[in-house]
């Protein structure tokens, strides 16, 4: 019933073939051109890409034609039963999103709200003046899978699971009567702003990117900002590739709070995966490949002189946080950095003050 809108004629007219040419994980000739590979995929043929994809989402951003190459890859992987991860991991992941601890208590908000989705345990990251007066939903860890955007299943070649469950999730959120839904995790934002339109799922509320919200609130509280004067590196998450237009808020926030973004190789479009997805694929060599990638990434931050690594996605923070810390770079979630900038003391920051 929900079908991906993919226009293969656009690929035929595409000069750059950037979707695959720019891929950091599949190497397609030095000239970077492999015309027709995505068309072959669109036509339902097998392709080495379907087997080698590390599911980093980046081709969604690289595509200059407004197509959805990554969503397509996932659809075809599923149709051709090409599993990007071993079977038990798929079973485990599919089961993970099933709520089993009762129904959530739904309160009508009739206004903007913040959705913690499957990160109910992280409410310490939404404290202080930046978040005052913003009602929050999904704060009960036992009920959080009722708010889980499901997009994680793109990593498991299970578009069908997303399409099956997502309308129910949207209905649950809708019962809160939101006008705008600020998404704590930008994977949720990507779901409602990119994936749903791409497959024709109706979203009855306006999704708002977390960073756009933070930026607006910081602007409102501008008189409280004291420039933090810290050299920061930013760990861009895979889900940000679904909303590249919102990525600019990273730089805007840094400038607003006086954080100095260091010059690095692996930044913006060229950002590296935290390694979690690649290791999570659990394939032969995944562990080493992820470790090598992480080494390269952290090395790059270090070389650039970063004092702090700013995270967006809690999963990246969990995967890479310890590693950057061992290299003397402090791992920090963006919201904590913003709180710090307006003179608040997030948990664990006492010493810094």
């Amino acid at each position, binding site marked *: 019933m929900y079908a991906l809108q993919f226009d293969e004629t656009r690929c035929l007219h595409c000069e750059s073939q950037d979707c695959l040419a720019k891929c950091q994980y599949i190497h397609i000739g030095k000239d970077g051109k492999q015309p027709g590979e995505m068309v072959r995929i669109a036509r339902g043929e097998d392709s080495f890409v379907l087997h080698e994809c590390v599911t980093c989402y980046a081709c969604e951003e690289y595509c200059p034609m407004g197509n959805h190459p990554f969503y397509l890859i996932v659809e075809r992987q599923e149709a051709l039963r090409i599993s990007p*991860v*071993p*079977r*038990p991991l798929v079973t*485990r992941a599919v*089961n993970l999103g099933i709520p089993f601890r009762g129904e959530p208590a739904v309160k009508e908000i009739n206004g903007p709200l913040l959705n913690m989705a499957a990160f109910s345990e992280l409410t310490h990251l939404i404290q202080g003046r930046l978040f005052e007066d913003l009602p929050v939903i999904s704060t009960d860890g036992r009920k959080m899978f009722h708010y889980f955007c499901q997009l994680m299943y793109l990593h498991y070649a299970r578009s069908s699971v997303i399409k099956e469950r997502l309308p129910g999730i949207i209905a649950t959120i809708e019962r809160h009567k939101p006008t705008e839904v600020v998404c704590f995790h930008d994977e949720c934002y990507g779901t409602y702003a990119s994936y749903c339109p791409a497959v024709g799922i109706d979203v009855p509320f306006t999704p708002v990117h977390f960073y756009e919200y933070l930026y607006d609130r910081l602007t409102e509280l501008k008189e409280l900002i004291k420039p933090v004067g810290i050299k920061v590196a930013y760990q861009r998450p895979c889900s940000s590739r679904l909303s590249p237009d919102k990525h600019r808020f990273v730089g805007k926030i840094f400038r607003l709070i006086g954080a100095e973004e260091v010059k690095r190789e692996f930044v913006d479009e060229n950002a590296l995966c935290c390694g979690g997805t690649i*290791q999570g694929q659990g394939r032969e060599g995944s*562990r080493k490949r992820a470790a090598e990638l992480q080494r390269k990434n952290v090395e790059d931050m270090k070389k650039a002189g970063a004092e702090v690594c700013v995270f967006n996605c809690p999963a990246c923070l969990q995967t890479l946080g310890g590693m950057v810390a061992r290299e003397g770079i402090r791992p920090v979630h963006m919201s904590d950095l913003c709180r710090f900038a307006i003179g608040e003391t997030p948990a664990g920051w006492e010493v810094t003050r």
Partner: protein
Amino acid sequence: MNAIYQALADIVDAEHVSDRPEELYIYSFDLGTAEPHRPDYVVAPRTTGQVREIVRLANREKVPVVPLGGGLSLAGLAVPLKGGILIDLKRMDRILEVNEKGRYAVLECGVSQGQLTSYLAAHHPGLTHSEPGAPPAATVAGNALIHGQGDLAQPYGFNSDQVNGLEVVLPTGEVCRFGSCAIGASWFTNHPLPDVGLFFGWCGTTGLITKLSIRLYPAKRIRGVGQFVVEDEELVPEIIGRVTGTQMAEDVIAYSRAIPPFGLGLQHFTVNIAANSEKELEFKQELIWDDALGEYIRRGDGGYLGFTRGLEHPQISKTSDYKKGGGFEYVGSIMPIEKYPECYRRGREISERHDIPYTVTGRCVGVGHSMMFAWTYAFNRADPETMRQAREALHETDDLVLELGGVIWKPGTYGQQLILGRLDPGTRALMRRIKEVLDPGGIMNPGNWEGI
């Protein structure tokens, strides 16, 4: 004033003796499904001398003596089935010695797992002991006496195998020592004096252990847990064989459970790996995940779930709250590893029949020599029906253990009787003679190993 009460108060002190309903009530329970039985007195001694005097008193008065450590066996082993004097040994909680070079610790019997873990971390960070998956309030001595297994069971075996020496108060009140300490040497070895292993597995019916020496092992700087998962339970024994074959792992556990639902029907493995350097860690990881298990990953049958640094030490269990009801009990067994698939399938079936979310765990003991396989049944303490169901499931599982060719671990009275029914007559006769010699008055934890 009651004469026994007065005598106990004279031996210990009035504050640590009670025959009041509140103490008798609390000490009548096991935390599992066992029916409560009230003791007549509760006493909490501080020294071996006091324990000896209490035991002598019990002999004179012909009243039962029930020793209690952490009280966490869940098998009802310290329920005073025939009343008598319950001796709470937890006040005897001094760590007497830690020998760094000889890697052992001499402890009083009331020292808890958590206390030893914390003490070693603070004062001897290079040493660790094989800590069982029990709450940290479980005692080190009690766990060794019931043949417990810890997180070093895979390389080093049962915790009863870690014992270097014992001080025991016999049922008739004499104090004996075993191991090198018996000839006045330090507590560094249990061998090679004549073997008088009369106390392990006897459920407190042959004496009270007041001190023990336990082996310690190097605690590497990095310790963590790697996880692996398969769908097919038939693969579990060979995977355990491959992982243990690398000799690169500490704890190796396979488990499956219904809650949380993402694991339903899957077989998970946790493999503890320890290393002093990143190089050592990577070397071990490579041997385990890539060389030993790479084949399963290639075939798509097995998935590596990552390595998490840091061990939860002591370990925290939330099993008791599965039914929001403050209770669980499990049947533990010592089982050949090849039986894992059947143990899982049959256990799951029993659980589902009794409407209990299934939880099964197999911890490797020795390098594939055996496993402790446990079937856990949660219940709601406020709902007698769930307790009855759990008790039924437990009894069925006791039967299953023997049917599958395993041995019931720390059996409660039901399991003890099943074992006695199958016990070699010669062995049974010898055990009877030993019991009669050691405990002529039959005062030690009566009701256990009854009718031997």
